[in-house]
Structure formats: C-alpha cells, structure tokens
C-alpha cells in the first residue's frame, strides 16, 4: 500500500471532435460556442491519478480547470471516472487568456489546493501547446517532469521514463512536483454506471478570480502578452478524395487509386 497523497489534475474542455473548429474573425479567439468535450489527453493524467487512488484509498484527486461555467458538464465525466471534486475557475475577466495569463490563474488555484502531485495531459487538443506545465512549475517553484510515459511513486519521489529526440531519459523528482504525462502511459478507464450516477453528487466548486486573489489585470486579454493579428487560409493540398469503407470494399478503391497514381 502506498502512502496517500493529494493529487491535482489540470484538465481542459476543448471543442468536441465532431464540432467545427474555427477562430472567430471578430474576437480572434477560438470559437467555444460549439459542443465541448474533455480534452482526451487529460484523461490519461486523470487515469494515472486514479491508479494512485486505487492503491491508496485516502488519496484525494482534485480536478482543476479554467473555463466558462458550462465546461462543468464536460468535467462531470472526470468525476464519473472517479475524481473526488472539481475546482473550476470561471470568470468573464479570464476570457482570452494566453499562456502567461492562464498560468497566473491556474497557479493561484493550485496554490490554494497545495497538492503533493500536480498532473497534466501531454497537450491541449485545441492549443497543441504542450507548454503549460513548465510555466506552472516555474510559478509554483516546483520540480517538474514532462512527457512522462511511465510514473512510479516511491519514497516521496516520482520516477518517470520519457522520450526525447534522442531516445529515453529517466528522471526523478521529489514531491511536491509537477508531472505531464504522455498519452502512452495508460488506457483511461470508462466511467461505470455507478460512477456516472455518483458524479452528480460530487462537488464542483466554481471560483472567480477574486476568490483566488488574482488581480483582473493579470488574466484574460489584459494579462496576456501575445496577440493574434490576422488569420489566413493555409495553402490547399490540392484535391483530396474521401471514401467510406463497407466491409472491406475500400481495399479495391485504394488499389485503383494507387494504380491510377502509378504508385504500384
């Protein structure tokens, strides 16, 4: 049995896979009015936290997010999977936050929770930044490991293997620390029926910037240091063809396509 720890998991709502993804030409921000879903990459971080909870029942798993209030619906899935509660920072003044502004807010929320371990997913499906954790770790002055493809917690230390451009590193960091996990680390569990029923009763704490003591000037556009100046269409790849398979029929179509293009 492992000693219980407190784990925070930073999770984000992103546009659902089937929703149209566009930047609003007026606000130059991602159009978030479309259907949302939990960022898939973050469910791997949550799964890792839940595994720690499985091996030490007293472990507490808190989901921390910053998003408009309606994201609480997507976040309920995290509770259904097994997280204990959600802290959702929701504030008009936080809209349009870039990296610096987002991390000022999330760091304040994390500071209030002061977890032993803070987990991140490998990237936000909409931002593709893979940068957030390093900024958070710096703000919290905590050691950090990123791209973790494995995570072992022992004697108050995290040990992880991670891939770089040259092969595999093995890193170790003492708690409290920040770890971003890769999507290869585990297969996230599905919420059970009991989990789904129970999720409605678990607390979702919606907090404002004022609750966290974050000056409005540090968040949102006011707190951001980058700006979107213009939008353009990328060059087209030329005509592309799409086929739907029907019991393997596509094989024939692929073959004729390759023959047509003299690729065989």
């Amino acid at each position, binding site marked *: 049995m492992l000693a219980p720890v407190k784990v925070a998991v930073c999770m984000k709502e992103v546009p659902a896979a*089937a929703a149209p993804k*566009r*930047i609003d030409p007026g606000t130059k921000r991602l159009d978030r009015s479309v259907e949302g879903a939990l960022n898939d990459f973050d469910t791997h971080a949550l799964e890792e936290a839940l595994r720690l909870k499985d091996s030490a029942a007293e472990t507490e798993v808190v989901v921390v997010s910053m998003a408009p209030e309606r994201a609480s619906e997507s976040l309920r899935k995290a509770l259904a999977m097994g997280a204990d509660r959600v802290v959702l920072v929701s504030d008009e003044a936080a809209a349009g936050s*870039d*990296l*610096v502004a987002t*991390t000022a807010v999330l760091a304040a929320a994390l500071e209030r929770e002061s977890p032993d371990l803070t987990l991140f997913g490998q990237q936000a499906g909409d931002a593709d*930044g893979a*940068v*957030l*954790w*390093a*900024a*958070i*770790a*710096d703000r919290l002055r*905590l*050691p*950090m*490991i*990123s791209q973790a*493809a494995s995570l072992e917690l022992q004697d108050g230390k995290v040990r992880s293997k*991670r*891939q*770089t*451009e*040259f*092969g*595999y*590193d*093995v*890193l170790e960091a003492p708690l409290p*620390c920040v770890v971003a996990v*890769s*999507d*290869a*680390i585990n297969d996230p569990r599905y919420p059970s029926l009991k989990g789904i029923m129970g999720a409605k009763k678990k607390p979702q704490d919606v907090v404002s910037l004022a609750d966290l003591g974050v000056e409005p000037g540090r968040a949102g556009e006011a707190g*951001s*240091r*980058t*700006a979107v*100046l213009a*939008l*353009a269409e*990328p060059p087209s790849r*030329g005509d*592309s*063809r*799409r086929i*739907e*398979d029907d019991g*393997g029929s*596509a*094989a024939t*179509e692929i*073959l004729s396509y*390759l*023959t047509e293009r003299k*690729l*065989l």
Partner: protein
Amino acid sequence: MSILVYVEHHEGEPVKGALGVLSKAAQLDDEVTALVVGSGVEPLAESVGKHGAARVLVADDPSLEAALPQPRVDVLARLVTERGFGTVLFAATVLTADVAAGLAARLEAGLNWDLVDFTLEGGSLVGKRAALGDSVLVDVGWTSEPRLALVRSGTFEPVANGGQAEVERVPVELEEWSTRTAMVEQAHEERAGPSIEDADVIVAGGRGLGSPDKFGMLEDLAKALGGAVAATRAVVDAGWYPYATQVGQTGRSVAPKLYVACGISGAIQHKVGMQGSGTIVAINKDPNAPIFEYSDLAVVGDIHEIVPRLTDLVRQQRGA
C-alpha cells in the same frame, strides 16, 4: 531588436533545428546573439558563429550537464533581464519547450509556439503560426518585451555563411528548487533498427492497431508494396515497435512517395515528420480524425478489414 537564439546541443554538436533558427534570425538582424548552456560546451561556439551568431554567450558549468529545463530557465532569465534582449527564439524540442514556457512565466513574457515562419513587419516581429490542426494560418504578435517564440521543428535549414563569433562566458547561478529534478539516465542515440528514411513507400501504424502483434499485418502490406514499416510515438512508447521507426517531431522525418497511415489520429507532432510525403493515404475508423485534413486519400473504415484485403490485392496485381 536585439535577438537571442537559444542553441541546444547533443553529444558535442549543436542541434540542426537550432542552427536553422539562428541562420534565419541572422537574415533579419546582423547582430544576433546565441546562447549555449551546458557542461564543456565552449567548443560549440565556432559552429554557432558560422551559422550567423555575432556573439556567443556560453554558460558552462558541471551543474548544467544534464539536459534539464529548469536550470536553463535560471540562466536565461538572468541574461535576458540584465542585457535586455527584446526577442528570444527557440527551435522546439522536448527540452526547449519546457525552457521557453518556464521563462515565459518567470519574466511574465509572451510566448508564441508552433511558428512556421517569422518576419519583421514595420520593425516589429510577427510570427506565422499554423493553428487548429494546421487548418488556419495565424499571424501572431507580442504586446510586450521580451518576445519569446518556439519554432516548429524542422522549419529552417542551417546556413553556414557566418564568420567567427565573439565568445563570452556568462555566470551560472541556479535556484535551489530548479535543481531538484534529477536525470537518472540520459537518453543516448538509439540508432539500432531498420532505417525508414530511404524507403519509397512507408506503411505506418498507430494505436488503432489495437495490439503489438498487429504490426505483422502492416509488415505484410509493406512487403507487398516494397516499403518499410513506421510507427507513432504512442505505440513506440508502449513498446509495440522500435523507437528507430518512429515518425514525427521526436522521431524521424520522412518523405516517401507513398505514406499509408493505419490507425493514426494525425497529431501535429506526427504530421511534422511525414508531411513531405508525395501521396498520403490514411485509413481510420473515425471520420473526424485530424489525419484526414492532410490526406490525399481519406479512407473511413476499419484497418483490420481493409489492410489484409489490400495486401492480397496488391500481391495479385504485382504477381500478374
């Protein structure tokens, strides 16, 4: 302007991407400074000078031996603050993304990532970023200094027409907390395994295969097509296929005539390693998979149904 380019290195050589960014920066400004951080790294200054740096700052200390980001943030934060660099550029890698983001927080500076180009417009820096799965090109700017940027890997080729740089050692002073992460084992070059860079045809597999033994099915198709088999990071990390066959940002870059992606979602980090392919055929059961955005032939279907049939058909046609 005052540009600082951070130059990462590995086994005694500057990494190619960093020299590429440096060469590009030198086209915009002939007073570019480069920074090399590590242990025993002063000899790198010569090559860095050749690629366009007018001055090379060297932070050389045994405590910087391991390729860890947080001590590098300490070095950079101090230099950028004391010398007032207006712009700090990084070629994106696993290490530099963490360095740049940490620095952004430390200096309350704007960071733009995934740049595929940058230019000067009316004297100020403008970045070109491919966003939302490369479906939109965004011009990005900064509202304050310093401006930090991560350039997408593989964007610029190094150009060695610079001269000799002035070299200056800079002091190293690290925060206690930023040295708490330890490198137990540092990656070394893993070159073992098949070479996929020279193949005319690549059949690549991702997590959609479902289990490692399914790579056999891809090997059969690759053999029929006269090609090699490649993989995504997700399956390499899971131990399903060797690291040497990984395509993408942290793997190989390939440009075969034909790339057949099987059960691959098509993340940007995968795309950067194969977008130069002549023809891209993708088979994925999810009609919304991002890979279809940049496929020439998008096949919505189950690879387990399609791939073995395709292999048979190719064999028949080739045999005939």
